[in-house]
C-alpha cells in the first residue's frame, strides 16, 4: 500500500483504474476536469491503452461510455453538474436499457457556483433515473468506491451515479492506494441484447424491471458500509450528514458529537436507518452539501416541524457549507473572527494580459458603435468575461451553445442586429446545430467564433474542431464568402472592425472566425 496526496478527482480516477476500467470519457468542466487529466497522465492507463481522449460534449461522452458498457467493459463518463443536463438523454435511457459492463457516471457539482451558472444537485438526477448514487465523504472513499460501484453496476445492470462536490474534487488528502490494479473485463455481449433496443414494446418491459429493482437498491443502501450510523447519548438532535456535510459536522463538534449521526454516502436513501433515527430523536438536522435533497423528502409536501436544515434557515438556503455555518446551526460558540478590513477592494476574474479575446471585443465594440440596437448573445468560456468592465460587450450567457440559438430566436423576433459570440470548443460542443437551423432559414445574423485553439477556461484542453472550423461551417451550408477570418491583434483593429461591419450589414448568415492561439497554452507549449 502506498500513500499519495490526491485531489478527490484524482482519487476517483485512480480508484477506477485500480478497479479494472477500460475507458474514461469526458468533456472538461470545473470541478471535474482533473479526472480525465489524471487518466491522461497515468502510466498504467497508457500501458493498458485505456480510452482517455476528450469528447466533444457530455452527450457524446455518455453514449460512448454506454457503448463500452454494452461491449462488456467498464467505463466512466465524467462531467460537471450542468454537463449532466447535456448528457441527460443517454443518462436516463441507460437506466432503462440497463448496463452490461459496469458504468459510472461521475458528476462533480459546484455548490456556491464558483465556476458555474447554477448549483444544481445531481442527486435529483439519480433519483429521477431510478439508479443508485454514491456521494463520498473523503478522498479515501472516492478512491475505494469505484470497485464497489462497478460491482453493483454489473450485478444489478444499472448505471451508477457518483456525485462529487467542489470541496472534495479540488481538495487534496492522503489516500492509501493499492499496489496493483485489477484486470479489465473481457469483452462480452449483454445476456439479453434486445434490452438495448428501446422500442416501446421492449422499453415497457425494461421499465417494469427498473421499477421492480428499486426495493433491492434501497436494501443495498441499508446494508452499505458507505452509510454509517454513529450513536450519541443526546437524542435531542439526530443528525443526517451526507457527503462532505459529514466532515463539517465532525469539525463543528471537534470530533466528539454528542448527538447520533447518520452518515449517508449511498443512495437511494437507507430507509431503515432513517426511520430508526426519526423514531429515537426529538429533532432532525440535515447537513447536506447542495440543494435540500434529503431534507425536502423528509419534510414532504406538507412540511414537518421536526426536520431542520436549509429550508428552515438553520443552514443557509444557498451556497456551499462551511464549518462555521454548521456550528451556528447547533448554536455552538464560534471563535472570534476579525471583521474584514474596509481597505479591501474586489479583484474580479479578468482576461489575461494580451488575451486575443480582448482584441476581439475591442473590435466588436467599435463596430457596434454603428448599430445602436445590436445585442450580443454570449456563451461559456473565458470570453464570458467580456460581460465585465472594461468591455461589457455581451448581453447574455445561459448554457453551452445558447449564443447561436438565442441570436437566431432574437432575429426571428425582429431584434436586429443579433450577434453571437462563441468559443471554438463551445462551438463544436453545441454550436454547430444552431448554425444548421440558421442556414435552413438563411437567418440574417452574425456569429463570431473566437478560436484560440483550446478549451481555455478549464485549463487548456484539446478543442476537437481545431483546424476544421471553416470546413465545418461550409459543410453546414454557410456561404463561403460569408465565412471571414480575422486576427485579433491591436495592429489589425481597423481591418477587423471593417470586416465585422460588412458582415453585420449583410442580410444573411455570417460567420467571422477571430483566430489567435490562447496565451496560456502557447506559453506552456514553449516551456516544454
Amino acid at each position, binding site marked *: 500500500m502506498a*500513500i499519495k*496526496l490526491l485531489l478527490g478527482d484524482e482519487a476517483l480516477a485512480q480508484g477506477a483504474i485500480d478497479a479494472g476500467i477500460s475507458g474514461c470519457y469526458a468533456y472538461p468542466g*470545473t*470541478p471535474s*476536469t*482533473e479526472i480525465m487529466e489524471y487518466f491522461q497522465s497515468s502510466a498504467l492507463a497508457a500501458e493498458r491503452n485505456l480510452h482517455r481522449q476528450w469528447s466533444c460534449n457530455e452527450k457524446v461522452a455518455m453514449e460512448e461510455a454506454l457503448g463500452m458498457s454494452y461491449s462488456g467493459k467498464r467505463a466512466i463518463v465524467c462531467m460537471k453538474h450542468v454537463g449532466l443536463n447535456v448528457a441527460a438523454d443517454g443518462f436516463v435511457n441507460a437506466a432503462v436499457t440497463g448496463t452490461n459492463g459496469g458504468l459510472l457516471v461521475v458528476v462533480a457539482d459546484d455548490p456556491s457556483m*464558483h*465556476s*458555474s451558472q447554477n448549483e444544481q444537485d445531481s442527486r435529483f438526477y439519480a433519483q429521477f433515473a431510478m439508479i443508485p448514487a454514491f456521494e463520498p465523504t473523503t478522498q479515501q472513499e472516492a478512491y475505494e468506491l469505484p470497485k464497489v460501484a462497478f460491482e453493483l453496476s454489473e450485478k444489478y445492470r444499472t448505471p451508477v451515479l457518483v456525485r462529487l462536490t467542489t*470541496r*472534495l474534487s*479540488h*481538495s*487534496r*488528502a*492522503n489516500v492509501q492506494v493499492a499496489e496493483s490494479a485489477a484486470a479489465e473485463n473481457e469483452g462480452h455481449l449483454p445476456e439479453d441484447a434486445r434490452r438495448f433496443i428501446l422500442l416501446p414494446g421492449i422499453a415497457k418491459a425494461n421499465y417494469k424491471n427498473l421499477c421492480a429493482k428499486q426495493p433491492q437498491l434501497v436494501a443495498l443502501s441499508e446494508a452499505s458500509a458507505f452509510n454509517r450510523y454513529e450513536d450519541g447519548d443526546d437524542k435531542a438532535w439526530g443528525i443526517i450528514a451526507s457527503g*462532505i456535510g459529514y*466532515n*463539517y459536522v*465532525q*469539525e463543528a463538534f471537534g*470530533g466528539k458529537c454528542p448527538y447520533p449521526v447518520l452518515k449517508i454516502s449511498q443512495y437511494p436513501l437507507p430507509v431503515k436507518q432513517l426511520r430508526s433515527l426519526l423514531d429515537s430523536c426529538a429533532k432532525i438536522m440535515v447537513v447536506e452539501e447542495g440543494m435540500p435533497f434529503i431534507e425536502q423528502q423528509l419534510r414532504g409536501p406538507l412540511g414537518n416541524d421536526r426536520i431542520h436544515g436549509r429550508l428552515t434557515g438553520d443552514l443557509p438556503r444557498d451556497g456551499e457549507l*462551511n*464549518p*462555521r455555518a454548521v*456550528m451556528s446551526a447547533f448554536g455552538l460558540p*464560534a*471563535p*472570534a*473572527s*476579525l*471583521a*474584514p*478590513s474596509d*481597505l*479591501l*477592494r*474586489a*479583484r*474580479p*476574474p*479578468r*482576461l*489575461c494580459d494580451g488575451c486575443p479575446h480582448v482584441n476581439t471585443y475591442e473590435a466588436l465594440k467599435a463596430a457596434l458603435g454603428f448599430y445602436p440596437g445590436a445585442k450580443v448573445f454570449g456563451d461559456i468560456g*473565458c470570453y*464570458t*468575461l467580456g460581460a465585465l468592465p472594461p468591455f461589457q460587450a455581451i448581453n447574455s450567457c445561459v448554457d453551452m451553445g445558447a449564443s447561436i440559438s438565442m441570436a437566431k430566436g432574437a432575429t426571428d423576433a425582429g431584434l436586429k442586429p443579433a450577434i453571437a459570440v462563441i468559443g471554438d470548443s463551445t462551438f463544436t460542443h453545441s454550436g454547430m446545430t444552431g448554425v444548421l437551423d440558421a442556414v435552413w432559414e438563411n437567418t440574417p445574423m452574425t456569429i463570431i467564433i473566437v478560436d484560440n485553439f483550446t478549451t481555455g*477556461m*478549464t*485549463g487548456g484542453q484539446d478543442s476537437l474542431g481545431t483546424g476544421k472550423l471553416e470546413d465545418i461551417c461550409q459543410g453546414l451550408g454557410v456561404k463561403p464568402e460569408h465565412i471571414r477570418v480575422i486576427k485579433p491583434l491591436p495592429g489589425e483593429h481597423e481591418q477587423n472592425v471593417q470586416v465585422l461591419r460588412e458582415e453585420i450589414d449583410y442580410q444573411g448568415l455570417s460567420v467571422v472566425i477571430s483566430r489567435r492561439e490562447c496565451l496560456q497554452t502557447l506559453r506552456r507549449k514553449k516551456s516544454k
Partner: protein
Amino acid sequence: MKCDMVLAGVGGQGILTIAALVGKVAMAQGLNVKQSEVHGMAQRGGSVLAHLRLSDAVIHSDLIADGTADVVLGMEPMEALRHGPALGKDGVIIANANPVVNIGDYPELAQVHEAIKGFPHHVLVDGEALAKEAGSVRSVNMVLLGTLSSFLPLPEELFTKAIAETFARKGEEIVAMNMKAFAAGRQAAKN
C-alpha cells in the same frame, strides 16, 4: 499537533507550488494533510486561495473556519489582508509587501501595510528584493515559503530536500537559487 494555514495571492504567484511543497514535507513526516484550491473561473486573474491543513490526528473539514487559522500567508499584501478574518487570535499573518495592482481602485499601499502591522503577530517581507538577491524575481514564492516554514512544526531539512526534489528537473542552478531564496525568507522571519 495541528497547523491550519490560509495561502492567498493573485493567479500566477505560485501559491499552489507553496502548498504542494508544504504538503510534501508534511507527508514525509507522516502527517495527515488536506489542501483545497480553486480552479476555473474562480481563478482567472483574480484572487487565488488555498486552505492547507496539517495534523497528526484525523482532519475533518477541507475548509478552515474563520477565526481558527494558525497562519495566513499572502503573496500579495491586499490578499493577505483579505483573509485576516481567517486568523485565530494567536495566529500570524505573513505578507509579501509588494502589491499586484491590476484593479483601478487599489487602496493606498502604506495603509495596507499599516493594517497588516496591526495584527499582534505579523511579518511583512520584501519578497521581490530578497528574490532578486537570490538570483531571480521568479523565486518570490520560495522566499515566502521560507518565511512560512519558520512558523511550521516541520524540520528545515525536509523543506530543503523537497525543494531539491521538486526543481531537480529544472537544473542545479534553479535548485540553488530556490534554496537561497528559501533561506532568505526564513531569515526574514527572525528579523
